[in-house]
């Protein structure tokens, strides 16, 4: 399975990860339009938390035990047993926020206009997620990990 890791020692909190993630999820491919013309503005699926000199680029880590998947009221969230990817089926999500309440990183974002939750999908149509590709400091690294096993969650996702 693939994962994005943060090397926080070289993250300066420039927030380009947020910028490119937002652009990726905007309708337009034009940065200015994405920020200034699109309403509602697209939501980045990554966020930078800062305190003093610490800045952390935080996104879904597609956890093995996936507390969000277990807590999901509707079954909209699932974790793929092969890729380990945690995804939300927007058709079935009602945006209740239960996933946000149990996520240890607090990463589920609520799209209030659509009444849906949105989250990182590691840019499925890109070779490398845009946050990683556009990080000027290489503070974000994309890596292949051995597949993990957690069949409880796998069974959720098989079905």
């Amino acid at each position, binding site marked *: 399975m*693939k*994962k994005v*890791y*943060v090397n926080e020692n070289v993250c300066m909190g420039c927030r380009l990860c947020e910028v*490119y993630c937002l*652009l990726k999820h905007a309708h337009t*491919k*034009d*940065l*200015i*339009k994405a920020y200034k013309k699109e309403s509602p503005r697209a939501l980045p699926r990554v*966020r930078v*938390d*800062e*305190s*003093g000199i*610490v*800045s*952390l680029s*935080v996104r879904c*880590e597609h956890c093995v035990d996936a507390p969000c998947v*277990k*807590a999901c*009221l*509707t*079954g909209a969230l699932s974790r793929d047993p092969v890729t380990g990817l945690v995804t939300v089926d927007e*058709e079935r999500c*009602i945006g*209740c*926020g*239960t996933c*946000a*309440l*149990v*996520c*240890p*990183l*607090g990463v*589920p*974002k*609520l799209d*209030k206009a659509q*009444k849906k939750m949105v989250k990182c999908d590691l840019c499925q149509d890109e*070779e*490398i997620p845009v946050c990683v*590709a*556009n990080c000027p400091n290489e503070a974000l*690294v*994309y*890596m*292949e*990990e*051995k597949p993990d096993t957690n*069949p*409880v969650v*796998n*069974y*959720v996702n*098989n*079905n």
Partner: protein
Amino acid sequence: MSTTTNTKYLIIGNSAGGIGAAEAIREVDGVGKITIISDEPYPAYSRPLISEYLAQPCPLEKMLYRKPDFYKANGIQSVPGEKAVAINPAEHTVKLESGGFIKWRKLLLATGGTPIVPTMEGIDLKGVFTFNRLDDAKAIDTFLNEYRSNVKAVVIGGGLIGVSVTEALVKWGVEVTIVEMKDYVLNTILDEEAAALEADALEQASVGIITGRTVAKINSQTAGEVGSVTLDDGRTLPADMVIIAIGVKPRLDLVAGTKIKTNRGIVVDRTMAASLPDIYVCGDAAEAYDFVMGENRPTPVWPNAYEGGCAAGLNMAGKKTEYTGGTSMNALKYFGLNIVSAGLVNPPDDGYKTIVNRHNGTYRKVILKKGKLAGFAFAGDIEKSGIIYNLMKDGVNVDSFKQQLVADDFGLASLPESAWRSKLAKPSASAVPITTAEPKEEAVIGD
């Protein structure tokens, strides 16, 4: 002679708890026969979605908790529309309403809760409903479709289910009044201030709220049908329909008459086992471990039912597992307002410290005891509440950064380094970097 079928695992209740258990059993035991019976005639659906069903209406396919091929793909024998009427723990059998018996090796009671219905005059009139299952939503839907316009409803009970049905009724254009016995709505899951935000949202949607009162009787004008209600202070409110939403209690009918120990719910240990061998219980029916209170009590919410079901299932299949526990926890989004709460909502005595941050419609409150979190409520902006929830669940001492917990810019970096490091994953020794040969694409800027 009536027929007896055999199964390795029998699960009664085809909902959050039952599905959690079945999925966990299949993790450990890929072949042992699993049978799930339910007296509801549907595949597992998301119970909280019955208000969406009533409001939209949202078709059953969209409410399914798992994909339609779930049972088949996992080799689960599902028997919808079948009721278990008696358990014989010694014989390891369950008697079915349709006449037969099922012999099991391990039994799970995931029978959920049942609405509390007060005895009062008029409770049997046409137009009185509960709101706990899909058929309740269907019955209300049918009633509203048959009915004249300008329908007035009285919802008895301003808890989660009362507010949930109110939202659906408002979408139908029904004029709703909530009658809540306590001082404020949602009082079991929110403190007064967060609840006031929800009350504002309700009032903006023209919902009437009467607190500190209850309904003493339901009256009829047309014979057999609801016409009004009389409150305990003598006031009369016109009503065409009444929804009973005063609460849910663990469903104990099946264990009555057995030696299975019950208290408020069915008593279980940390492995979700009941007091008799080979019988497990989870979800709204059980009185399972609450990690905030440090004791067992009913915490009737969906995520706890699923998690407790997983723990029960693993134990049933022979993998000894402790339920890590749940607590009272809720995420609400009624009338467009996002609220979350977990643990205690009000400090029970002065051994607790409360920290609040409120402005511009956002509200953040944490309750601490001896430096550890014992509860919180967030309204308006709930997105990072999960960090707080996990600090509470992990029993982290937050004393040194407690003010940060309610700050507007609270985030992972607000935690001490050791705490945020433990949350962020690190690459394993065998991780291989993925790179691309392609040059970065520059963003288009204002073409």
